[in-house]
């Protein structure tokens, strides 16, 4: 009797699901073209890369299954990787944190100006992302006594000898963070700008009537809860961006940086994937980086749901 019942309900369930699928056929039609491209050109490569992470693969010979060997090596025999994890955590927590706050603050402040000024200010803050001219910072922080900062500090008598900003382990982390913050107001920032444009001004008037006293309260109780979707987007792109820092460090500090002081997970990944042709190992690094990002993102998303409470 009971098995019969279960069968019934299972059958009913399938019928119900089939009905629902048919009812939402328009939705599937909307999703289909993008999904097809996504599955072929984004998802499939990712799946293959995850498979490679369990193999030994040098691109030229076929991949050889070695199970968890790559991961074991990463954790037990690769001291540089551990340094890279530590550096990436430090760099990305500082850069993502500050940059995310700046995205919100600037989006908010800029929103109060007149439309023309708003366009100009948005341009000003987004410009570094349009043109990544890191070489300008190399001139400013140049290690010889003619570099802008060195020359100035020496003239003031603060220092007597030129500082090697990008190679001295005492300064490089700070200088790298400074320069990367400058170019970090990209995707997340523009989306916050667009988000603020989308807030209904009637909400503010209603808030003023309800006893909201100043701009801070208005921000916390009205704007931020409304902008939660944009905040989540900004957080995700800022976090993924800062965890993927690598190329910029090559340009600024050289490859590898002194004592691996600024060596990130991405540097490590590119080293194995690009230079040493150990694709399997590089894929294992990518998988760990992915897990790290997923973990950090889920924590941040949880925190964001508490806004405005």
């Amino acid at each position, binding site marked *: 009797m009971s098995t019969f019942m279960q069968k019934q309900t299972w059958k009913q369930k399938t019928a119900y699901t089939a009905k*629902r699928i048919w009812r*939402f056929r*328009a*939705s599937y039609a*909307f*999703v289909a*073209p*993008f999904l097809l*491209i996504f599955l072929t*050109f*984004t*998802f*499939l*490569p*990712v799946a*293959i*890369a995850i498979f*490679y992470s369990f193999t030994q693969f040098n691109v030229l010979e076929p991949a050889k299954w070695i199970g968890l060997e790559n991961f074991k090596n990463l954790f037990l025999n690769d001291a540089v990787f551990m340094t890279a994890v530590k550096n990436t955590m430090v760099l990305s927590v500082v850069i993502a944190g500050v940059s995310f706050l700046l995205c919100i*603050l*600037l989006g908010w402040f800029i929103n*109060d100006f*007149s439309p023309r000024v708003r*366009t100009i200010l948005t*341009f*000003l*803050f987004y*410009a*570094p992302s*349009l*043109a990544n*001219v890191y070489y*300008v910072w190399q001139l400013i922080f140049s290690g010889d006594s*003619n570099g802008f900062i060195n*020359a100035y500090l020496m003239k003031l008598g603060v220092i007597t000898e030129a500082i090697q900003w990008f190679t001295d382990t005492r300064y490089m982390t700070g200088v790298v963070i400074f320069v990367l913050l*400058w170019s970090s107001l990209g*995707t997340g920032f*523009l*989306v916050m*700008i*667009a988000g603020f*444009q*989308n807030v209904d*001004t009637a909400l503010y*008037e209603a*808030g*003023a009537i309800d006893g909201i*006293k*100043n*701009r801070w309260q208005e921000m916390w109780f009205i704007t931020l809860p409304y902008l939660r*979707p*944009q905040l*989540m987007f900004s957080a*995700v792109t800022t976090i993924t961006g800062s965890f993927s820092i690598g190329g910029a460090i090559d340009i600024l500090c050289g490859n590898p940086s002194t004592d691996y002081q600024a060596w990130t997970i991405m540097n490590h990944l590119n080293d194995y*994937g*690009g230079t040493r042709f150990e694709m399997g190992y590089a*894929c294992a*690094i*990518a998988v760990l980086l*992915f897990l790290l990002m*997923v973990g950090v993102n889920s924590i941040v998303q949880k925190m964001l749901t508490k806004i405005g409470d």
Partner: protein
Amino acid sequence: MTKENKVKRHLLKRAKVNRSHAGNFVVFAFIFVLGVFMAIPLVYAISNSFKPLDELWIFPPPLFPNQPTLENYTGLFGLLGSSWVPMSRYLFNTIFITVVGTVGQVVLGSMCAYPLAKHDFPGNKFIFKLIFFSLMFSGAVTSIPSYLIMVELGWVDTYQALIVPAMGSTMGLYLMKQFMEQIPNALLEAARIDGAGEWRIFWRIVMPMVKPAWLTLIVFSVQGLWNMGASTLIYSEQLKTFPYAITQIISGGIARAGVSTAVTVLMMIVPLTVFIITQSNIIETMSTSGVKE
């Protein structure tokens, strides 16, 4: 001033409740200091392109050229004219890829985002999770699998190898979905009761309401595709992109250092123009986007 503009002005003014003068001053000072800091390197890059070659090596580098010159630009155009494949061909390739790729990315991404944000169909959450998590996987290791897929499809050395993958941008989809979530369900329901089909609702209600979102997406897409340089997927000279050709030209050593400063500025012009046009449009759409909950 038209009547509509007057209403808009009025709304803008009314939006500014809860603002103190002291607070305004702090905000202004903050924006000003940070703005100068952000602007310096860009100003520097532009002024560099107007410096004669010998001035590029002066230390410490002056912020503005002593004897401004256009020779970097004229030199660049001279080089562009003397290449083997006409430059217009490379330029056409890049424009074609940028336009088709951007239109495809915005349309397909928005189409997929709409049901993900607003329809509770079976598989919705699963599909979104799949896309969301792919966003976080490093692109550095997927280039070899991607290449293998292109070989399988026979797409190596074709335009679509560069255009089609760009249309499946996960970031673009996520952006559109987040904005669409803010559209009140009541509005869509009302349209359905009035007999509008999903296709009509999507184009006539959803897309106009998320205009700031897709205008922003256009900026990202154009910026990415315009700067797409040498690709492992393309080997015919006729199909190569403008940035690729231009890096070839300026890699000619110190003698071409002046020209390369002009290239930096020249490559910025198109993304910059698109940026300014879309931004001023985003800002115009304010508080005209219709009914809200």
